[in-house]
């Protein structure tokens, strides 16, 4: 099984996937660095660096762009086998088709993790510097780390939907359309700061971001929609995953004709 995953990662060498990761990574780093600009606290004294604010900005940027990018990555990994006509060969191996699906989804998870880690690099670098100067609240660092791990996990929840669209469409276009649609919703949803937005599965990763920002400005109290949102996301994940497993394993393969 690990060797199948390995081959999936090999296939990504020299592809545009790395650009997609960069698109996800750069804005998040930039906006979190904005927090370093000199600021004046309400009391009139210069404010110190606020790590929590940095994490909040990073998380926000990542959860606006991320869903579309992760969908595109999934689409590329699944659909390229049809578009580059390698699917005949792929399914001729003495390996169960479900193993290929699992390896591909694992590759997407690895890319999500990579994007998330890289997108928080500047926050953690600044955080580490503060730790070194003994100015930092270690608790905030831990909260930021937890937020990022939750973003990873929650972002993975909608991945099988992207996978399903790509294997049925045998093409990256359906997922590109999905990406545009989803980005509009995440951008509007996060701009509005409404708490029920997270019911939309692609916006559920925003929940831990908003959670972290409690106490900052307009956010207060735990999100009352957290449980239903998690249920919706879990159902989305399970149903689309079952569809993928059945479809991938059973479908006739015609690419190249």
């Amino acid at each position: 099984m690990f060797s199948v995953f390995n081959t999936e990662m090999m296939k990504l060498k020299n592809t545009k996937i790395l650009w997609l990761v960069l698109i996800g990574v750069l804005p998040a780093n930039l906006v979190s660095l904005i927090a370093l600009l000199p600021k004046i606290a309400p009391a009139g004294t210069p404010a110190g660096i606020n790590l929590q604010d940095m994490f909040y900005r990073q998380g926000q940027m990542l959860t606006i762009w991320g869903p579309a990018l992760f969908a595109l990555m999934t689409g590329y990994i699944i659909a390229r086998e049809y578009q580059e006509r390698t699917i005949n060969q792929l399914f001729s191996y003495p390996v169960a088709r479900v193993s290929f699906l699992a390896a591909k989804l694992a590759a997407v998870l690895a890319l999500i993790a990579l994007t998330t880690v890289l997108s928080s690099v500047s926050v953690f670098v600044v955080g580490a510097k503060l730790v070194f100067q003994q100015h930092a609240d270690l608790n905030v660092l831990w909260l930021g780390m937890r937020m990022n791990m939750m973003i990873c996990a929650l972002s993975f929840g909608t991945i099988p939907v992207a996978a399903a669209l790509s294997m049925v469409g045998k093409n990256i276009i359906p997922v590109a359309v999905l990406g545009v649609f989803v980005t509009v919703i995440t951008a509007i949803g996060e701009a509005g700061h409404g708490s029920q937005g997270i019911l939309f599965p692609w916006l559920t990763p925003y929940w831990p971001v908003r959670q972290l920002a409690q106490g900052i400005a307009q956010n207060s109290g735990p999100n009352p929609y957290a449980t239903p949102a998690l249920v919706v996301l879990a159902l989305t994940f399970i149903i689309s995953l079952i569809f993928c497993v059945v479809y991938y394993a059973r479908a006739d393969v015609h690419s190249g004709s």
Partner: protein
Amino acid sequence: MGFCLRTHHLTKRYGEKAVVHDINLSIRTGDIYGFLGQNGAGKTTTLRMLMGLIRPSAGEIELFGAGLKGSRAMALERVGAIIEYPGFYLNLSAAENLEIHRRLMGMGNKECIDEVLTTVGLLDAKQQKVKNYSLGMKQRLGIARALLHHPELLILDEPTNGLDPVGIKEVRQLFLDLARQRGISILISSHLLNEIELLATRIGIIHKGKLLEEIDYEALQRKARQYLEIKVDDEQRAAYILEQKLGVTDYLVAGPGILHLYERLDQSAKVNFTLASNGIGVKEIVLSGDSLEDYFLKITGGARLV
């Protein structure tokens, strides 16, 4: 000798239409089996079913003497294939593509990669990205990949597509060597008669989804009818003289200046003398056989192969 591949009543329907209908293939170990059919005859569909890429609507497949159900993975380890088109990851080099294949096939040592690249003459291009390969090079690389894991059976769908005449000749020689020296059985589909003719030990002719004939090449040669091909300056008068002087009736005007004589095959000297002494200029008399093409035309009811 055993069979390495057999199908029993193999059928694929799309909606109402049977694209492959009730096909019984039998390929013996060591055969080079030419699977011959026009465009759209159902060759690729059949091969896809053999590789488990599409599900048969009915019928069974037997690989190496066992049914496919349950032991698909084990059977596939012993098969190398190119179905329809040699697809590769274009962003990777030839060597990297083969490395993926090696891992998925569970092959231990890495030397097999250089080995097969040498076999198909691509060793020098091994670090080149496949994106920069020509179709002919991809085709060779496809053959290399099909060979990498030392298969016992090769299933090749039109493997000479995109090769130049020299390449076709080289690849043909390679297939012959593989069959003779390594005892690999080969199932090779084609819409080109002359290609199959030069290679196959056994031939299956598929037409509109049905297997019209399956025959050993030697038997086919015996079946083909022989004739004297006579090239003359005036075929009409020549025919008249042959009828009058020799009493022949079984002949055919095959074209301007060409007669096919289906009797007196051992009397070409007499035929020559008779014609010459009646003032007919004879340019050539040769004994010819019904070509595979003629035979094919006959059994498919006149459908032409390109």
